[in-house]
Structure formats: C-alpha cells, structure tokens
C-alpha cells in the first residue's frame, strides 16, 4: 500500500557525523558490495571498463567547501543515502504499491516484483536517493540493509547496515529514533542533529551532525610567527633585500 502509516512502531535510521567523516567512500563500496550480492536485483554497472562508465549506487559521498565570513574554508565530506522520511513523497506517488513504508520499523522499501519502472518515485525524492537500475529496469534504493539487521545467521556485531559496519572513522550510527534513550537519539540531541531540506516537508528520519567548531587548536600558540621584526643577521638581510628590491 502506498498510503503512509500514521505512525511506525520504531523509527530505524542513521546518524551521519559530518565532523568525523573523512570522505574515504568505504561506505559506498561496502553498500554496493552487500546490495549487489544479496537482496534484490544486483546494482548494475554499465560500460564499467570503457570510456563512459556509469553505475547504480544507493549511497554516494559528495564533498562541499564551506567558506565562513572570516577564516579559512572548511571541507565537509557528505555521504547521502535514503533518509527513510516519515512523510516520504516517493511512497505516495507509486501507482503500483511497489514502494512502501513499513509499519514495524519505518524502513522505506521497494517490492521489486511490483515495480513497473516508471521512475516517478525518483522524481518525487528531493535527495536523489533512488536510482533506476539500467539493467533490471526497477527502482533501487537503500534498504537500511534489512537483510542484515534482522539476520540471525550473522554474528551480532554484523547486524547493522553495511555502511555503518565498515566506516573506519565511526561517522555512521544506526539505531531507533523512536526511543529517546537510544544512542542515535542521544547523539542527535547532544550534537544538534539536523534535517536536510526541512522546507520540503519530508520529515527525514536520518539526521546529520554538523561539523564542530574548530575551537581547540593546540598548535596555534606554538606556531606564532617569530621573525616579524627580526634582529641580527636576519634583520640586516631583510633591510638589505628591501633596499635592493625596493619593497
């Protein structure tokens, strides 16, 4: 059914820490690996070794430069995947009922055998979280690794999304946002977790933690310039060169 549930029992999702992400793309690769080898149609690559390679990914890492009014610019690596929105516009537009949001945990999924590949859900998503697979002709999206998180054949530490499991920096966290005591809820509260494009009214479940202010700089005092008004040999050199160069 493409009607959204009034309320879900749990709200599973991710916290992505923009302060910690180093932009290594390991989450992109582990996601592609797991979701190509397991549930659903594999994530196709076309012309993979040719002149115009292209592929389907459920998770992509952008990099942005943020230039504050004063001070140096900051580079922010920005992983982006499905945000499993509470008011998911991709679900209600689906004509076949292939797209749905689960009542038990809030995960947004595609039933691939019902998908006619019309692409409308990808149009409705402001985040670019859905990609049509060129080979399978069906819509692919993040499943929050639904085939890992409940999978009792896996060791307990592996029962989390592949991107979270693989992140070497600990920049990704998985949990239940409906539980105020969960790690992800506490992290969001402590660090000011934010929504992407809140004006689109999608109420994303996934939260992004903004980069911390660069207030601790232990090296700065030790790196104060020491030769601003130099004396001795350097002072003589400075004066002489200034005379020669006229500066």
């Amino acid at each position, binding site marked *: *059914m*493409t*009607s959204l549930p009034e309320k879900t029992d749990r709200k599973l999702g991710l916290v992505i820490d*923009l302060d910690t992400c180093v932009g290594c*793309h390991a989450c992109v690769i582990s996601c592609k690996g797991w979701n190509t080898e397991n549930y659903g149609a594999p994530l196709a690559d076309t012309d993979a070794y040719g002149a*115009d*390679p*292209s*592929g*389907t*990914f459920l998770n*992509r*890492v*952008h*990099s*942005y*430069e*943020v*230039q504050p009014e004063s001070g140096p*610019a*900051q*580079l*922010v690596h*920005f992983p982006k995947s499905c945000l499993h929105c509470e008011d998911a*516009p991709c679900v*209600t*537009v*689906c*004509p*076949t*009922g*292939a797209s749905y949001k689960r009542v038990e945990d809030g995960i947004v999924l595609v039933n691939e055998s*019902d*998908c*006619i*590949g*019309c*692409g*409308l859900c*990808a*149009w*409705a998503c*402001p985040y*670019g979280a859905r*990609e*049509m697979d*060129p080979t*399978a*002709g*069906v819509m692919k999206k993040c499943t929050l690794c639904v085939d890992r998180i409940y999978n009792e054949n896996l060791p307990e530490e592996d029962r989390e999304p592949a991107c979270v499991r693989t992140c070497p920096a600990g920049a990704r966290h998985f949990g239940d946002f409906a539980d105020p005591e969960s790690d992800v809820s506490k992290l969001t509260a402590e660090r000011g977790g*934010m*929504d*992407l*494009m809140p*004006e*689109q*009214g999608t109420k994303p479940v996934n939260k*992004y933690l*903004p*980069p911390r202010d660069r207030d601790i700089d232990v090296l700065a005092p030790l790196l104060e310039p020491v030769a601003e008004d130099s004396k001795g040999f350097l002072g003589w050199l400075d004066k002489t060169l200034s005379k020669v160069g006229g500066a």
Partner: protein
Amino acid sequence: MHPAPSVIIFTSLSGLGFGLLFWMGLGVLAPTGWVAFAFFTIAYLLAVGGLMASAFHLGHPERALKAFTQWRTSWLSREAWASVLALVTMALYGAGLVFFASRWAVLGYLGAALSLATVVTTAMIYTQMRTVPRWHNATTPGMFLSFSLGGGALLAGQVTLASWLLPFAGLALVAHWVMGDRALAGSGTTLASATGLGDRGTVRSFEPPHTGTNYLLREFVHVVGRKHSVTLRVIALLSGFVLPVLILLAGAGHVLAAVAVLLHLVGVFASRWLFFAEAEHVVGLYYGKR
C-alpha cells in the same frame, strides 16, 4: 528534467485527443455515421497513441496493470483509471452516434467529464512534485487544461470556441514561464538547506561523488538545450497559438484549418519540450548544477 520523447509525445497527443473527446461528449458537435467515425478515429488515435507512447518509458511495461491499484494516493494510478473510464464511456457514446445516429446525451456528458478529469490527473502528476518548483503551482494544470480545451476545439473545427480558447491557452503558457522562472528561487530550497551547512558560510560543491555520470544527472539535471529556450519559447507561442488564431480569424477552409492544427501541434511539442528541459529538480543542487 530529461525531456524524454515518449512523455512529450504522450502528454501532447493525449491532451489533444481528450480535448476533442470533451467537446464531442458535450455535444458541441454531434456528427453521425461516417463523419462521426472519422472524428472518433482521430480522437482515439491521439489519446490511445499517446498512452501507448507513455508505456515506452516504463522499465517493465508488462506489469502496467498493477498501476490501477493505488488510486487512493497516486495521481499516476488515478490517471490510469480516468483514461480507461473516459475511453470506454466515449466508445459507447461514439457507437450510438456512428451506428445508431442517436446521441445518448447523459453518456456524452459523463464521457466529457471523464476526459477532462484525465487531463487533470496528467497535470497533477507534475504539479504534485514539490521537488520541481517550476511545476509545483497552479499554472501547470492551467496550462494542460487550456491546451487540451483549445486544441480540442481547434480539432473539432469550432472556430469561435477555438479563437477564444487558444489565446487563453497562450496566456496560460506565458504565466507558466513567468511564474516558473522565479519558482526555484522562491521555493527556499538551496544548497545551503540541502546540506544544512548554510549557517556556517557559503557552501560550494567541491567534488562530486563520482567522476562519470549517473541516473540522477541524466534524469534530473538536463542542461543541454536551455540556451535555445528563448527561441523555443517564441516558436511555441507563435506556432502554437498566435498563427492558428490568425488563420481561424481570416476565415479558414479545410486545408488552412489543417495547417492551423499542424502549427498548433508544433507549438505544443515545443512548449512541452521546454516544460521538461527547463524544469529544475532540486537534487541538482547537491551537484552544484543550479
């Protein structure tokens, strides 16, 4: 947005076809026998041909019947229902005119309403997209409806109706451009809100996630051809609306009326191409492409 030929052909032709069916259902023209057969054939070729064209952009056309299930939430599903109901109702109404030379008026009114409803559902598929601010306003259904009514009247040979409705459709098109050109800026969605980093400074896309292209860029970040948009806007307006009305007002015979229809069709195609090519999907912001 990527201007897919299948969708441009679909929305243009089926809009015209359902417009013609609307005027016939209302009884504005009620031919019988072979003349009725000819009119209904044209209307069905346009409406059904358009629907067939739209099936080409599906990844799995063989599952198309499933699209009838979600009419409670999905405009695409509602369009499927409205179009089939309109076509069936108007086929029965048409059978009365063609074979029994009798006009079953109630059936005609119902068919006319369903034909118009089909055009509304088509327009709403685009209008509902908050992600494409250019489409997300009342000018989109206004344009689709006025095109369908004006073009349908032109096809139906209704000179007076068409010479009133086509200028109105032209105005709706201009309104869509004027509103649309300001829509993205007015939507409040920017790279700053997309990344949540706007309050820290000026955000700039530094590096895309991949060196090649991908589905998102091909489907949503169409920028090729926008440089011709002014030329195409002039062509759309002149060919689609100004010239056909001038021809009608000059008192056209059958041959000139056919020329007016063809000119109108060229204009509609041009405007529909622009409708997609100029539409800015907000996902382009993430790629620094807006």
